[in-house]
């Protein structure tokens, strides 16, 4: 009981002090990863981790829905074609090269499972450094903002290929059912807090259903979100509401991920972490320097941070395939994302200061 009390106090103190410290240091974009570190530290305490694992699903469902709600087909149709091509090629190209690089460096084909999770670029970090003034800047920011859509599409496609046909059927059925059902529920007259409560209920039910049928909550809720964004007039307030509650939810998610994965102390973990950092860092750098993506005009460090989506995809892969590969791989992936995020924020800040 004392352990639980200690953990709650630690989390509460961290929640209210971290952001203040980072704000003072003007590195607020690092916010999030510190909770992952706290989670790693707390993983050493016996907190009934096995019972906490089902809590990860609703967080993934929430992240998927949040991204899905941002996808408006009207905007996508009006976009110049090259935008979509660039984003699609970044997602596919970087994933494939990264997978190949990881296999070649580590000699372990299973580690390449995380390649797609290393492809996103953190919009929060990029938008922190690049002002939205000027057509060039806006183009870059737009590219970064539509990237998650393509990455999640690719993620869904990869699952359709690798999972059993029955799982794919489940994915399609639940995405459709929950999308239609959420739409009917949200069309009732609610006050904002009621709307949010319905959404919480839908996310929890949808995500835990995915857990039961061993399918991806991130993908299923992403498609439900896309459907809602394009058919439900009430999506704007929903988006506002869940976006407003983003910080505590992200904090809890990262804390849980850190607590459940833990940090192993063996050489294999160290080697795989270094391999992922090296390959992911190098390839992201190379891709940023490819003139066709139009990112070259800005310092490369701005595009190094993979962001929260990266951790969400990695977690989704881990909870679905947890039994088939060592937990140390997931920890290596998390450490790699954390270090890339730190490089992105620190190097970006240094570039900014100059």
């Amino acid at each position, binding site marked *: 009981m004392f352990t639980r009390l200690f953990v709650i106090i630690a989390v509460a103190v961290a929640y209210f002090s971290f952001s203040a410290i980072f704000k003072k240091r003007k590195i607020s974009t690092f916010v999030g990863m510190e909770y992952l570190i706290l989670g790693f530290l707390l993983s050493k305490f016996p907190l009934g981790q096995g019972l906490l694992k089902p809590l990860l699903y609703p967080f993934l469902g929430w992240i998927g829905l949040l991204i899905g709600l941002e996808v408006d087909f009207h905007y996508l149709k009006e976009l110049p074609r090259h935008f979509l091509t660039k984003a699609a090629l970044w997602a596919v190209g970087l994933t494939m090269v990264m997978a190949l690089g990881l296999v070649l460096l580590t000699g372990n084909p299973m580690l390449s499972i995380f390649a797609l999770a290393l492809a996103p670029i953190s919009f929060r970090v990029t938008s922190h450094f690049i002002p939205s003034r000027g057509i060039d800047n806006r183009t870059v920011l737009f590219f970064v903002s539509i990237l998650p859509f393509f990455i999640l599409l690719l993620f869904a496609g990869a699952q359709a290929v690798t999972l059993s046909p029955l799982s794919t059927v489940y994915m399609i059925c639940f995405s459709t059912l929950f999308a239609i059902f959420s739409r009917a529920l949200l069309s009732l007259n609610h006050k904002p807090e*009621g709307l949010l409560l319905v959404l919480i209920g*839908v996310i929890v039910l949808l995500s835990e259903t995915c857990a039961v049928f061993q399918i991806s909550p991130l993908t299923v809720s992403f498609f439900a979100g896309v459907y809602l964004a394009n058919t439900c007039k009430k999506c704007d307030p929903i988006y506002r509401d869940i976006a407003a509650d983003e910080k505590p939810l992200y904090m809890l998610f990262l804390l849980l991920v850190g607590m459940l994965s833990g940090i192993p102390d063996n050489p294999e973990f160290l080697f795989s972490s270094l391999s992922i950092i090296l390959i992911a860092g190098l390839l992201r750098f190379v891709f940023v320097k490819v003139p066709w993506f139009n990112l070259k005009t800005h310092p490369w460090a701005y595009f190094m941070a993979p962001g929260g989506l990266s951790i969400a995809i990695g977690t989704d892969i881990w909870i679905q395939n947890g039994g088939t590969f060592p937990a140390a791989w997931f920890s290596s992936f998390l450490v790699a994302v954390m270090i890339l995020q730190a490089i992105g924020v620190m190097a970006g800040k240094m570039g900014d200061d100059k």
Partner: protein
Amino acid sequence: MNWRAIGSLLLNIIAISVLFFLILTGSSTVSHSAAIAPYLALGFLIIVAYLTGILARELGFPALTGNLLAGIVFGPSLLGFITKSNIHSLEFINTIALSFIALSAGGELKLKSLRENASVISGITLSHTVLIFGGTLVAMVSFLNISGIQGIAGSRIIWMASIVLAVVAVAKSPASTIAVINEYKARGPFTDVVLGVTMVKDVVVLLIFAVSMGIIRGISGAAPFSLSFLFHTFGDIFLSIGAGLVYGGLMILFYRFVAREITVFIVIAAFLANELASFAGLEQMLMCMIAGFVVQNFSRQGALMIEGIEKSHLPIYVIFFSIAGAGLDFSYFGSVYILVTLFVLLRVGLIFFSTFLGAKLTGASPAIRKFAWTGFLTNAGLTLSIAIIVEKAFPDWGRPLKSIIISAIAINQLVGPVLFKIGLVKSGEVRPQSGRDR
């Protein structure tokens, strides 16, 4: 009444129930971790309880009655969508919610209004304690002697069981009272008196129970009557009050120097209070009520705390009351319905009479005299704890007694909030609202 809205709500409730039934049926065909089931049930319960809450409001009932009904209908007593093991796993949410509700109760109480209504509050509390306890004891001893309930026979056991029922009759549920007050945003002397009596009675019931247990142990011969049990309870109460004062002080410091993310803070504060109380063996409800009271009355940050509470109370109430509803067990009702009905009716009568008398003797307003009794009918957590403690101490007669108490709680929880809402409206401290206001 908006029949179109009612129809649409019913359709949605049926649709989500069918969907959940299909998921449950499908889930039995695939292997998955048992730890997932409670959260799956929670997702369903949140949606369905929220919808039944709005439906209840559309039909003129408090939303919490709808939440409770959703729990009862889909819980183990009826449809069985939510199993007993799910409820057991989700109980930790309820203990946290209870801290939150107690903080809210303390926060709603203003010292100025307490001072103004001190005589009425103490008059009603005293009259409740004496008349309800005495009346129930006499009536139950007589009834049990005449009727004879299986497992409760023999003069000593009848006396002991009647003492417990008398304590239960005095007890009430602060959570339901606060929920109805918050839902209808009731403000005024009537609300203050009901809240004040609720808060004071929480302490009084703990004391009466401690004395009663000492007497029961003496009667049963399990232990000679001793004052140590009473001293122990007094110690617990004083410690809880002290802890509440300190905790309230710490909350004030937060509101004064940090004052960010007040909604998140109040949830964390409730969570932490629950853990602290369990760790130190304190009375969780009392400690939180005092803490809320301190923030409201001994700082300028009371409004900030209430703002945080109001922003987050809907999910907490929906989850709390739906799980509480699912936990209500009606399976015993068939075997003890005569005694339960008699006990419930007797309790209502005694509450009405003692409230009226206490209010009249202390010169309370006509609204309080006529309608304040409606605020004292519900009983839940504390009453259930009493039943569980007695069952553990005296399993022979404690078990049948527990089934009687649980059945009575179920009825009181369903009827109490509805009557309290009527009382609030009649007192003029709330205006009737439609479900859309929720």
